[in-house]
């Protein structure tokens, strides 16, 4: 377990470094940061001044290492648009995104586990077909369109929920549904496939042969084993969610990291875009690391191979 963990941790660190290099290169190569800092219509002399002041005239690898060192010390620079420190800005927005991400995952689990179990227990029946339809439609429905339909239904027609903002719990209901439904299909399919496999395994047949009732077999013996990979997938999906929440946060004007990323992109505020990209990637790297270690801990076969 120790050797596996060390190897997996090493990979995570390498990936984090590569991602940081890409985040740096992507936003440096695709535009002139000096021009962005100096602003539209700046004189050439001013742009040159900005270039030397910010050290943007040095070779890119030097700039990268310098940037990496600064970031490692917790200094993410200054936002060009919001005129404030990037770190403080992100610290302000992070809780909203974590809330929306966490709630969406809970929503997806609450929907996919019972639905997946039912679909597996009654495989081939109409329940199975309904569950499959929920998954297939969920994969085809554009999240932003679904979000707009929810707004029409719950805010305009029924007047139950506020359209946009992030002040009260009510503001989080529609974003949670829209984003949670988006990640439900893969999880439900995994629960269903896992349950079918577990239910046809020898120890379940033994449990049935011992005379245990159907429900006891399904929940005590089956679900416990089928749910392990789902938890790991949920961790990975949470990483996806944080990225995918850009669209949802922008629609509902939820004041989180995703909305911040969108604003920074439209205002060419590259220090913020860079920092959000780096943070979301690091969160993903950590989540997958945790998921892999959890899987290895629960299933010794993974450690050995």
């Amino acid at each position, binding site marked *: 377990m120790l050797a596996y963990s060390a190897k997996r941790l090493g990979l995570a660190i390498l990936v984090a470094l590569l991602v940081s290099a890409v985040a740096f290169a992507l936003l440096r190569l695709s535009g002139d940061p000096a021009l962005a800092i100096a602003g539209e219509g700046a004189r050439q002399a001013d742009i040159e001044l900005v270039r030397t002041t910010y050290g943007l005239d040095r070779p890119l690898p030097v700039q990268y290492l310098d940037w990496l060192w600064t970031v490692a010390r917790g200094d993410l620079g200054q936002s060009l648009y919001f005129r404030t420190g990037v770190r403080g800005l992100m610290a302000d927005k992070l809780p909203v995104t974590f809330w929306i991400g966490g709630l969406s995952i809970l929503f997806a689990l609450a929907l996919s586990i019972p639905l997946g179990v039912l679909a597996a227990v009654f495989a081939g029946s109409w329940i199975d077909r309904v569950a499959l339809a929920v998954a297939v439609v969920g*994969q085809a429905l554009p999240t932003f369109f679904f979000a*707009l339909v929810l707004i*029409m239904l719950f805010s305009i027609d029924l007047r139950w929920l506020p359209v946009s903002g992030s002040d009260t719990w009510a503001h989080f209901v529609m974003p949670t549904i829209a984003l949670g439904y988006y990640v439900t299909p893969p999880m439900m399919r995994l629960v269903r496939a896992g349950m079918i496999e577990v239910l046809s395994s020898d120890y379940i047949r033994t449990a049935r042969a011992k005379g245990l009732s159907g429900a006891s077999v399904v929940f005590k013996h089956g679900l416990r084993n089928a749910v392990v990979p789902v938890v790991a997938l949920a961790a990975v999906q949470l990483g996806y969610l944080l990225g995918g929440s*850009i669209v949802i946060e922008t629609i509902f004007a939820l004041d989180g990291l995703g909305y911040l990323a969108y604003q920074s*992109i439209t205002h060419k505020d590259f220090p913020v875009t860079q920092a959000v990209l780096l943070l*979301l990637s690091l969160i993903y790297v950590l989540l997958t690391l945790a998921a892999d270690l959890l899987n290895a801990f629960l299933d010794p076969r993974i450690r050995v191979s």
Partner: protein
Amino acid sequence: MDGTATTPATTPAPTPAEVGLSPPGVLRRVLGHPGLVAGIVLLGFCVAMAVLAPLLAPHDPYAQNLTQRLIPPVWYEKGSWAHPLGTDNLGRDYLSRTLYGARISLLIGLSVMLISGLIGTALGLVAGYFGGRVDLAVNFIITARLAMPVVLVALAVVAMIGGSLLVVIMTLGLLKWDRFAVVMRSATMQVRGLDYVAAAEAAGAGRLRVLAGEILPNVFPHLIVVATVESGSAILLEAALSFLGLGVQPPLPSWGLMIAEAKNFMFFSFWLIAIPGTALAALVLGINMVGDGLRDVFAPEGRA
């Protein structure tokens, strides 16, 4: 294969998948799968919309008419057959725009699939076939790529370069190869150890020849399934980018862009977002049903 036909190892027993892939077998299984048939019909309908758009569209999709703004579709009281799906806020015929929108979505789906499929398949094949350090390196690249949120990177790139159909296609194509690489890698690993690969190698076939001639045809079913599902996901991504204003630019009738343009009018004219939204969902639904169906047809044991 002709030079090796004398040794018994070169004529392996046909695997179940090979038997099932004979033309009559496939056709029978396709027709016996209602989901797949429904998917083909739905997708075929969307393709027909795209191909026949110039013939079917009653008006020029770009022609504005400010005296004919926000006319509701024909099933509303104020609707008329002159504009069966109504008009948008600039008086453009909505049916014509929706029909031409199918072209953009399908073009995006196909081109992104081709670019990302080429990159991902090459990486996956090489990693799965050579294994060892090559596999480690490819796996590392895949992991790093997965760590970066596609929407965020794509938005940033399009914002920097400037939105256009070509930029969106290239950006998504260069980003979305991960699933191809993952699936092709594991499929190649499974095929790699089989007898006919070893036989071709023993017969002196070069590595490229083995990859292209022996391995690729045998992992092809997996490739088709991934390609189908990934083109659907590319279409959804383009729509999301265009919806956020950082994808295809006006006046192109991209469905995502149409929803964005109609957003300010949706409280009074909900059909303005409902029509392109439904079209988008129907197209992706059709594609995904075809993908799911093909997976069952190629690997019947996959779904009990």
